[in-house]
C-alpha cells in the first residue's frame, strides 16, 4: 500500500510537453510510400525500358525545335518542317542521308515534321490531361466529401456518360472552328467526369475506412489526414489518369483528322501527318510508316507505363 503510494508520486500527473522527436520514436516506421512505389515500379524490366523510351521520346520531341533552330539558316533548311522548294526533284524522296524519313508530296522533310508533330500531339495530350485531371480532382473530392452533392453529381454523370464520346467530339468540332483549343474543349467536356467519379469512389472509401476513422479519433490534425491518409492514394490515380489520357487524346486527334475535323492542315501534328501519309501509302509507304511507328511507340509506352505505375502505386503491391 505504502509502496504504491510512493510510486504514484505527484509528478506522474504533470502534463508533459509535446515532443515531436519522442512521438516519432513511438510511431516510427521506415516505410516510405514514394520509395516503395518507385522500387516496385522499376522492379519490372519492361516498365523500366518503356519509361526510358517514353521520357526520351517526349524530351527529344520537345527539344527538337531548339536543335532545329540552332542550325545555320534553319528557316531555309530541312529542319524547318514547313520549308519546301518548288522543285519536283525534291518531292516524294525515299529515306536518304539528307532526309532520314524521306520527303512528302511537296518536298517537306518528314523527319522534322514527325518530331514537330509528336510535339504538337504530346502538347495536346498534356493540356487535355491537365484540365481533365484538375477539374476531375476538384469535382471528385467535393463529390466524395459533400454528401448532399452526391445525388446531383450522379445524375449529371449518368446523363453525360450515357452518350458515346464520339458524339461529343463530332458535335463540338463541328460547331466550333477546328483547332487546338476546340479539341481540348471537346475532350475535356466529358473527360473530367470519369476521373471525378474515380476520385469520388476513392475518397468515399478512404473517408469511411477504419484507419481513417481511427486516426480521426486519435485527433490527427486535418493537414496530416490529408497528407498522410488521403493524398498518397489520390496521387497515384492522378498520375495514372494523366498517363492514360495522353495516348487517348493523341488517338482522338488522329480520328478527328480522319473525319476532317482535326487540327488545320497547315499545323504539323501526328494526326495530320498520318492522314496525309494514308493518301499516298501504296506508292510511298514510308510517308505513313515512320510517323506511325513513332506514334505507336509513344502511345503504347504511355499506356503501359500508366498501368504499371498504377499497380506500383497501390500500397497493397508494396513489399
Amino acid at each position, binding site marked *: 500500500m505504502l509502496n504504491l503510494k510512493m510510486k504514484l508520486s505527484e509528478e506522474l500527473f504533470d502534463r508533459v510537453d509535446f515532443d515531436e522527436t519522442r512521438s516519432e520514436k513511438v510511431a516510427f516506421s521506415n516505410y516510405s510510400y514514394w520509395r516503395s512505389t518507385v522500387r516496385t515500379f522499376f522492379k519490372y524490366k519492361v516498365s523500366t525500358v518503356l519509361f526510358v523510351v517514353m521520357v526520351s521520346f517526349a524530351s527529344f520531341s520537345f527539344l527538337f525545335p531548339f536543335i532545329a533552330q540552332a542550325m545555320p539558316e534553319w528557316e531555309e533548311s530541312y529542319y524547318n518542317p514547313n520549308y519546301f522548294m518548288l522543285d519536283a526533284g525534291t518531292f516524294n524522296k525515299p529515306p536518304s542521308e539528307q532526309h532520314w524519313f524521306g520527303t512528302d508530296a511537296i518536298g517537306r522533310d518528314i523527319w522534322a515534321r514527325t518530331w514537330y508533330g509528336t510535339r504538337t500531339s504530346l502538347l495536346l495530350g498534356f493540356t487535355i490531361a491537365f484540365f481533365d485531371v484538375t477539374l476531375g480532382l476538384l469535382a471528385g473530392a467535393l463529390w466524395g466529401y459533400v454528401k448532399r452533392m452526391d445525388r446531383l453529381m450522379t445524375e449529371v454523370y449518368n446523363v453525360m456518360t450515357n452518350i458515346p464520346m464520339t*458524339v461529343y467530339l463530332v458535335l463540338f468540332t463541328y460547331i466550333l472552328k477546328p483547332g487546338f483549343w476546340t479539341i481540348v474543349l471537346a475532350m475535356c467536356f466529358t473527360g473530367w467526369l470519369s476521373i471525378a467519379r474515380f476520385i469520388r469512389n476513392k475518397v468515399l472509401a478512404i473517408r469511411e475506412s477504419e484507419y481513417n476513422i481511427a486516426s480521426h479519433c486519435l485527433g490527427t490534425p486535418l493537414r496530416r489526414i490529408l497528407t498522410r491518409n488521403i493524398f498518397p492514394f489520390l496521387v497515384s490515380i492522378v498520375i495514372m489518369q494523366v498517363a492514360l489520357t495522353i495516348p487517348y487524346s493523341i488517338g482522338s486527334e488522329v480520328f478527328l483528322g480522319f473525319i476532317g475535323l482535326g487540327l488545320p492542315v497547315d499545323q504539323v501534328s501526328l494526326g495530320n501527318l*498520318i492522314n496525309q501519309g494514308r493518301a499516298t501509302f501504296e506508292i510511298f509507304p514510308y510517308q505513313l510508316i515512320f510517323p506511325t511507328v513513332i506514334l505507336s511507340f509513344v502511345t503504347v509506352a504511355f499506356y503501359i507505363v500508366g498501368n504499371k505505375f498504377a499497380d506500383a502505386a497501390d500500397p497493397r503491391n508494396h513489399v
Partner: protein
Amino acid sequence: MATAQKKTPAKPRTRMKRFFQSYGFRRSWQSALTVFLVLFFVFVLLRLMPIEGYFTRQDYEIMTEAQRADYLEENGITGNPVVLFFRFLGNLFRGDLGMSFRIQPNVEITRILSEKIPYSLMFGIASMGISLFFGFALGMAMAHYKDRLVDGAGTLYVVVVRAVPSLIYLFLIQIWVTGFFNIPMTYSSKDPSTWFLPVISLSLASIAWYAIWLRRFMVDEENKDYVKFAKAKGVPQKRIISGHVLRNALVPLAQYIPLQLLLTISGSLIIESIYSIPGMGGLLIEAIKEKDNGLVQSLVMLFSVLGVLGVYLGDMLMLLVDPRIKLAGKTDGE
C-alpha cells in the same frame, strides 16, 4: 371499425407504392428524363451550327441575305429554342425528322436512315457474334494460363489494340490483307469476299474489350472463398469454372451487351468510311463534310438516344440476372 374498412383497400395501394419505389420503375423514369435532357441539350447546341448547312447548295447561292433569314425563320431554325424544341418533339412523335439539305437534297431523313440502317446492323451483329465468341475464348484462356505465354500474348494484343489509334491498324489491315489475298479493297454487295474484312476489323477492338474484362473478373472470382471451398470439397475444376467462376464473372459483362447491340445501329465511323460501306457511320462523316445540318442533327440525336437506351436496358438485364441488385434497390441505399 374505421380500421377494418381501411385494411382491405390498403393492399393494392401498398403494392402500387412498392412498384413506384422499385428500382425498375425509378430507373425507367430516370432514363426517360435523361433522354429528354439529352435531346434538349443537343438541340440547343446544334442551333450553333454553321448556317449554310440549312440550305441546299443551290438555294444558298441564289438567295439574298434577307431571303435566307426569312427561309430560316419559316423553317423553324431561328427563334426561341424552347419553342422550337417542342415543335421538333411534336414532329418526332409523328415520325418526321425533317429533310436532308445536301447529301440527298430534300429527301426525308427517315427514308435515308431506313436505307442505311440495315447495312450497319448486319455488319454490327455479325461482328458482335464473332467478338463475343473470340473475346470470351481469349479471356478464359488468359485467366486459365495466368502469367504464362497465352496471358502475355493476349495482354500484348489488348495493349496494342487499345493504345494504338484504331485508324492506323485498321487502315494497314485493309491495305495488306486485301493486297495479300488479292481481293477488292472496298465493300461490294455482290462480292462476298469483301464482306469478311470489315466484320473482322469491327471485332478487333471488342474482342480485346471482352477478353480483358472477362480475365479480370474470372481472376477476381477465382480468389474468392467460396471457390476455394469448392476446391477443398473436391468439385472438379471444370465444374468450378463453368458453374461458379464463369457464371459470376459474366454478370458484370452482361450489363454492356444491350448497349453494344444497340450501338451496332450507329455503325463504325472509321470502318464504314474506309471500306465505303453505305451505312450509318459513314453517313455521319459524309454529313459533316458536306455540312448537312438536318442530317447531322438527326444522327447525333439518334446515337445519343441509343446510348441512353442501351445503358438502361443493360441495367434492366442486370435486374434479371443478378438477384443482389433487387435487394440493394429496396433499402434505398446507394
